[in-house]
């Protein structure tokens, strides 16, 4: 017994004496939980930046269903299969893929418990929890109600449900989209969705209408959307901002009625985007604060609540960066680089992160917004003048080109992560 203990202590002392050396020799373990744009990118790039690292990606599902472009699935322009990706590419790149759920995190012992009973030790843990819905925030709207009034804000079965409801709707029907107050996943997506649904209605059910009930008074890329709506869907989309009574205060699933402070709207199809918070994994790992989201430092995305745990993507409070797939992708790379540097004993470099957001108002009508971000006074701030948006006045050729660039971005990014 005493011999074994002495041996153990000896090993510990050696490890403490030269941690960087031991890790550089390939002993370091990084566990990534959550295989979306943030987590899967990070796992892949950890192996690229530091091939000797032991990287494990823990993800419940065998197949990932991506949100970007899922509004086109709702419009009937794209099969859901094109949104779906497996993890074989990550496995081929040397990442150990564990298809199971994380059930507990012990930050002191630096271990993650998995649903299959395995206990994984880590030197660095990366969590990419995505979002959960706050089912208590909107009276009348719970998980059961979401089967009647789909949110379609996590791509998959909900996306197809909303598609089927639109297909079944009569011509002349009213589609209501309820938009929450920020923060929520992908700021311009509700308005892209309104556009895509309008495209379907214009071509298949032209007497119908889209009503957007909004809990705020302005939104991302608003002038470009307003231009697109007047170009493509005059009189088809009506947007009701907060100051015009747009805030939805309750829903009645039985009658498909949405109540605002000043009005009541009976929908034929209702798409309710509920208020959101970081995914359950964030609370499991103890990295979410009272806001429901996860504060991080801006260089390595390390949690300010739990040292040694990094938080990526929609769940993180990433300063000026929007909650978007492109942001998560950029953060995954920056975090991977910072972890590789730290485990090799190199000082982490302050990253520049680029987040680009393409919107398709119609199959051949695209526009974009690009932001560049850097750590500045303790948080991620936008670099002035570095990004940009599509011009408001533009010819159809440019809009059609941007629609193709959007598809190019999706293929390149998903290929880089999952290919």
């Amino acid at each position, binding site marked *: 017994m005493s011999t074994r203990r002495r041996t153990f202590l000896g090993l510990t002392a050696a490890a403490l004496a030269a941690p960087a050396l031991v890790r550089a020799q390939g002993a370091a373990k990084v566990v990534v939980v959550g295989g979306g744009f943030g987590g899967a990118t990070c796992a892949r790039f950890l192996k690229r930046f530091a091939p000797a690292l032991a990287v494990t990606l823990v993800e419940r599902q065998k197949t990932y269903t991506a949100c970007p472009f899922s509004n086109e699935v709702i419009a009937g322009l794209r099969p859901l299969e094109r949104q779906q990706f497996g993890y074989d590419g990550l496995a081929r790149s040397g990442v150990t893929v564990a298809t199971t759920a994380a059930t507990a995190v012990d930050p002191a012992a630096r271990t993650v418990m998995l649903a299959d009973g395995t206990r994984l030790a880590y030197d660095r843990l990366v969590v990419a929890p995505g979002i959960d819905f706050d089912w208590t925030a909107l009276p009348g709207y719970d998980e059961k109600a979401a089967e009647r009034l789909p949110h379609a804000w996590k791509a998959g079965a909900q996306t197809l449900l909303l598609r089927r409801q639109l297909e079944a709707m009569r011509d002349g029907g009213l589609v209501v989209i309820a938009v929450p107050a920020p923060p929520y996943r992908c700021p311009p997506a509700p308005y892209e969705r309104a556009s895509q649904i309008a495209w379907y209605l214009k071509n298949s059910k032209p007497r119908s209408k889209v009503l957007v009930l909004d809990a705020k*008074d302005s939104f991302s890329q608003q002038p470009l959307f307003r231009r697109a709506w007047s170009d493509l869907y005059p009189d088809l989309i009506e947007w009701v901002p*907060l*100051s*015009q*009574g747009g805030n939805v205060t309750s829903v009645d699933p039985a009658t498909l009625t949405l109540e605002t*402070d*000043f*009005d009541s709207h009976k929908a034929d199809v209702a798409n309710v985007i509920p208020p959101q918070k970081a995914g359950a994994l964030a609370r499991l790992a103890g990295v979410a604060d009272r806001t429901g989201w996860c504060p991080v430092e801006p260089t390595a995305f390390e949690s300010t609540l739990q040292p040694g745990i990094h938080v990526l993507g929609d769940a993180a409070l990433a300063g000026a960066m929007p909650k978007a797939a492109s942001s998560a992708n950029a953060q995954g790379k920056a975090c991977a680089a910072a972890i590789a540097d730290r485990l090799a004993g190199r000082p982490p470099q302050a990253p520049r992160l680029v987040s680009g957001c393409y919107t398709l108002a119609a199959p051949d009508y695209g526009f974009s917004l690009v932001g560049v971000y850097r750590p500045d006074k303790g948080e991620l701030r936008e670099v002035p003048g570095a990004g940009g948006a599509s011009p408001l006045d533009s010819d159809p050729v440019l809009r059609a080109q941007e629609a193709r660039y959007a598809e190019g971005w999706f293929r390149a990014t998903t290929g880089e992560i999952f290919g």
Partner: protein
Amino acid sequence: MANVLINAPKTARRGETIELKALILHPMETGFRPGANGTIIPRNIIQDFTASWNGVEIFRMRMSPAIAANPYVSFCAVASESGVVRLRWSGDNGFAVEESVTVTVT
């Protein structure tokens, strides 16, 4: 664009507590913010909101620069008799808006 939104029940039972909601479009400029040219934008706020039921004041609210743009007010009242509920907003630069709704009490 409506300047004022009001939500009050058209009918109520005698003695019933009813909720009245009102929203008015107004910038509620604080008087503390510099404009594009660096000079302070003059204060422009609503200072008073009152509601009266058949001429009797039932609710009064004093607003300050900390109140957000487009102030939204919700309050309750006991429906005692049929009549007109008059809502009045007044503030800087002679701002004055009055709207009324009728509530029938049975």
